[in-house]
């Protein structure tokens, strides 16, 4: 079974495929969200230490995972776009960034709402929180650079270089922040998710996984739609776009 993947690397063939993918992943994501939310709120038991408030992790952890995963995928697409000069790769990187930034923000927001009842404070300068904040800055920088350059090809390649520099830096930033945090252990607030994870019951883990997959499929659906718009924007003058739009009339 040799599928010719390169066939789909041209925007003309990818555009209709992306439309179908968006629909299917959108439906799958809604179904998974319903199941995941039901599991998170009605099946998963109340945590005996943290009460009902712990249920925030069912959105917080998937959002945090997705934010990091999306940055990684975005950097890979950006690198592919620079190495092979494929137009579609850069468009994918550009389409991923806003959703990545959104999940980063949700992770920060929900983390803050978790912190208030659990630790009694909205914000802690904890290593993980600070790293997540920096990740948000990196996403914003990527999008800002992209929108500041008018020439689409130059914008794609410049922001691609930035994404690669960011992904090389990310581990260094993460470890330096973690190390900084251990140095400044002023307020002794222990991260209790660690405890939750080790003694987490299977049902909690499953609900979290279902929610993560729901977020993942959601991302695919949204990104596919966004990449369709970017393709139309960039390829507006090509013949295939004109023929396609003429046919549908």
């Amino acid at each position, binding site marked *: 079974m040799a599928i010719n993947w390169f066939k789909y690397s041209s925007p003309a063939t990818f555009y209709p495929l992306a439309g179908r993918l968006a629909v299917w992943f959108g439906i799958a994501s809604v179904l998974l969200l319903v199941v995941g939310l039901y599991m998170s709120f009605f099946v998963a038991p109340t945590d005996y230490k943290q009460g009902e408030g712990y249920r925030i992790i069912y959105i917080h952890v998937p959002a945090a995972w997705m934010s990091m995963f999306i940055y990684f995928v975005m950097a890979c697409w950006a690198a592919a776009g620079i190495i092979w000069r494929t137009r579609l790769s850069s468009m994918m990187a550009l389409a991923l960034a806003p959703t990545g930034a959104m999940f980063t923000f949700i992770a920060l927001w929900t983390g803050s709402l978790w912190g208030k009842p659990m630790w009694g404070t909205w914000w802690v300068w904890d290593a993980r929180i600070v790293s997540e904040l920096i990740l948000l800055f990196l996403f*914003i920088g990527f999008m800002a*650079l992209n929108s500041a*350059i008018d020439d689409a090809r130059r914008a794609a390649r*410049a922001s691609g270089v930035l994404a690669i520099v960011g992904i090389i830096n990310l581990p260094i930033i993460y470890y330096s922040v973690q190390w900084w945090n251990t140095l400044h252990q002023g307020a002794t607030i222990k991260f209790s998710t660690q405890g939750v994870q080790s003694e987490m019951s299977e049902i909690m883990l499953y609900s979290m996984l279902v929610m993560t997959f729901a977020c993942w499929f959601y991302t695919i659906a949204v990104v596919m739609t966004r990449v369709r718009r970017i393709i139309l924007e960039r390829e507006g003058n090509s013949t295939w776009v004109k023929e396609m739009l003429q046919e549908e009339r």
Partner: protein
Amino acid sequence: MFGALKTVILRDLTLAMRHRSDVLTTLFFFIIVVSLFPLGVGPEPEQLRAMAAGVVWVAALLATMLSLGRLFSDDYADGTLEQLVLAPQPLSLIVLGKVIAHWMVAGLPLVIMAPLLGLQFGLSGDALIALMISLLLGTPALSLIGAIGAGLTLGVRGGGVLVSILVLPLYIPVLIFGAGAVESVSAGMGAEGHFALMGAILIMALLLAPWGAAAALRISVE
């Protein structure tokens, strides 16, 4: 090959010496930012001593970042950069030369000035030496990493503000270890570990940043 490096450094230094006020502006910016903090926070010596390293380092970050605009923009405006991109010498080497010259003009004065500012904040002698060494190791890394951002935003509208969004998050490790070194000396512990880590960051930046900045310049000039 090193001839080319030397030529680029000497050329950029000569150009910088013709616009001496630019150099001084960066330095005065650094001094003013540091001097503003006691006015904002209050004159308690204990508090000032505790925050001295962080304040000086953040000011150094901002001063370096502001001076990044000059790194390539003049050459870009008069077309020299296109010639440099087409030159037979590797572009990353030329970029390295320009970054070294930039550091000598923008970074080195900060290193020399920092102990004086540290004195104003009541730092001890050991801490002042640690501050100088940390800046000596850190500011070249700042110039190197910043060169990538400067290359990417070349000729882009709103480039000055944009470069800060791109570059400042990448400066965070240098800031953490730099300020940490001074703090750990103040607390009576050695700072060898910090200096080793900063040295590692500097070496990594030396190996990777000229290459990244050269790629950025090629994209911008093309």
